[in-house]
Each structure stands twice: as C-alpha cells, then as structure tokens.
C-alpha cells in the first residue's frame, strides 16, 4: 500500500475497455531524464514486527522534513503494541489507521511544523497531538479516511470531523507553525 500524493485519477486501469486501445507511440515523456531534479533520492526503511506476527515496512524516499522520520518511526513502534497495552483492554493499533495518519501528515504539515506527539487510542487508532505556543491541537483517526480534530487556543475552541475538506486543518497547522 503506497502513500502517494495527488495520484492521477485513472492511474489504476480498472476499465475493461483498456484492452481496446494503445497509447500513441512517441508520446511526450512526463520527465526529462537528464534533469538535475531527477537525481537519485535516498531511501530509508524500517521494519516492525506486529503483534500478530506480520511484518510492516515503512520507507521514506526523498528529502523528508525534520518532523517526518521520528514521527513515522514512532507510528511503527506503536504498531508493535500487543492487546491490552493500557491494562484496560486496549486494542492493538490498526495499520490502516497508522497509514491514514501518515497520509494526513504528508498532506497538511509544513516543513517547519513541529513534530506531533503520537499516542495510541484504545480503539486501535492513533492520536497526533501538539501542545505548544498556546495551542492545543489533537487529531484522532476514526477510520482509514475520517479524523476527529480538536483545536484550542486563547481565542478559539472547536472540534470537527474531517473527511475530505482539509482547509480548516491546514489553517490550524499554519497557526501552529507560526507560533512554535
């Protein structure tokens, strides 16, 4: 399962008529291979052993911002938690929720946003928290595509469910980055 931003909507050929046509030969290449920006990007990977014995690999390619690697590694560590990790019957973390958290962060974080604290929830989700600059921001994964966002500063206190419109969260992250 790759986390890719801005995918071409029809990259996955799920149409049965795809067999009826061929792309035109000699089509313009999307990238020029001699360009400097195509230099080889480093890849780093970490492996985690989940409680059910399956293995998870988290890899980062390119030049990630400072917050990314420690955050992704922390998510991987939390995925290794066994059931009842909180002594009150907590569920192990659902890999789909961890992936959702990574995807969310890649979409909304700025390079200079401080890294979140990542905590597990007892229902198998993860919660990303920032408490800095007079701001309390928490984002909890409710499912693979739904989040509960809670933002509080001296002037505002709001909570909302996030599905597809990231505008208010991007504003909150912007405030957080400026005040950190």
């Amino acid at each position, binding site marked *: 399962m790759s986390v890719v931003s801005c995918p071409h909507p029809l990259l996955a050929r799920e149409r049965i008529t795809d067999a009826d046509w061929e792309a035109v030969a000699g089509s313009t290449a999307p990238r020029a291979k001699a360009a400097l920006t195509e230099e080889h990007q480093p890849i780093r990977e970490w492996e985690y052993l989940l409680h059910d014995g399956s293995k998870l690999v988290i890899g980062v390619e390119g030049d990630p911002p400072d917050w990314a690697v420690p955050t992704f590694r922390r998510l991987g560590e939390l995925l290794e938690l066994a059931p009842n990790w*909180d002594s*009150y019957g*907590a569920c192990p973390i659902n890999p789909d929720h961890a992936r959702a958290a990574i995807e969310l962060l890649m979409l909304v974080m700025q390079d200079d946003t401080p890294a979140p*604290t990542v905590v597990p929830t*007892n229902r198998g989700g993860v919660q990303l*928290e920032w408490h800095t600059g007079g701001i*309390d921001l928490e984002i909890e994964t409710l499912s693979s595509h739904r989040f509960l966002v809670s933002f509080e500063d001296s002037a505002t206190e709001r909570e909302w469910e996030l599905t597809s419109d990231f505008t208010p969260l991007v504003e909150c992250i912007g405030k957080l980055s400026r005040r950190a």
Partner: protein
Amino acid sequence: MDDYTDDPTILNDADLWRRIPPYHFVSDPTAGGIRISSAAFEDHPNGTPMSVLLADVVAETERGPQDALAGHESFGLAAFTAGLARSCEQGVAREPLADEPAHAVVFGRKTKSVSRKLAKGSRWVVPPANR
C-alpha cells in the same frame, strides 16, 4: 451505560485513580514536563464505561498507590476528582470486582472535550519514573 446510576455517596472531592501507560505521556514544557494525553480517558473499546479506582476504598483495604500499579511498573497513576467528572456530565458508580473492591466506573458520553478536561484536571499520584 443506561444501567449505571450516579452514586452520591461518592463525594465530589473523592479521588478517582486511573493507570496511565507510558504511551500516553506527552511532553509539555508549559505543563511542567509531562502531561497526560486525552486518549488515556476513554471508555473501554467494547463500550463499557471507563474504569477507575476509588482512592478511599484502596486505603480502606490497607493498600496504596503502588498497589494500584502492581504489574505495571512503567505506568504512572493519575487522580481526578469525582466532582470534575460530574462537571463533565459524567456519573460515578461503584462496581466492586472480586479481585478489586475499589473498582468503579465513570460513565457518560466521552466526547473529545470530556477526555481533554479529565486529562487537564488530573494530577500525578505516581508520576512517570525517570523522566
């Protein structure tokens, strides 16, 4: 949750203890070092209410905070008052168990706001070790 009734014999200033796993310690310089994540104050994943220990019942059975953490030495122990829980529209009810007479529940809808108020209003009884 409909089966529980708030118990007025649990006074508002009664301390309720909750074990906090190390995964719910959050670094916060403005809060004096380590604060507790709101994620530590949720109902059970199966829907039953949040478990706590009644500090006075623990004392009556001649036990202390370290007994509440037996087998969970890396955990911390947090306390909040029954009054705080009730101010968040929660109820507090005794639910003694065979192996834990001090067991009680905090019942009521645990919105994010409720969990955060409980986290903010809690104090350490046994703080995180070596931090």
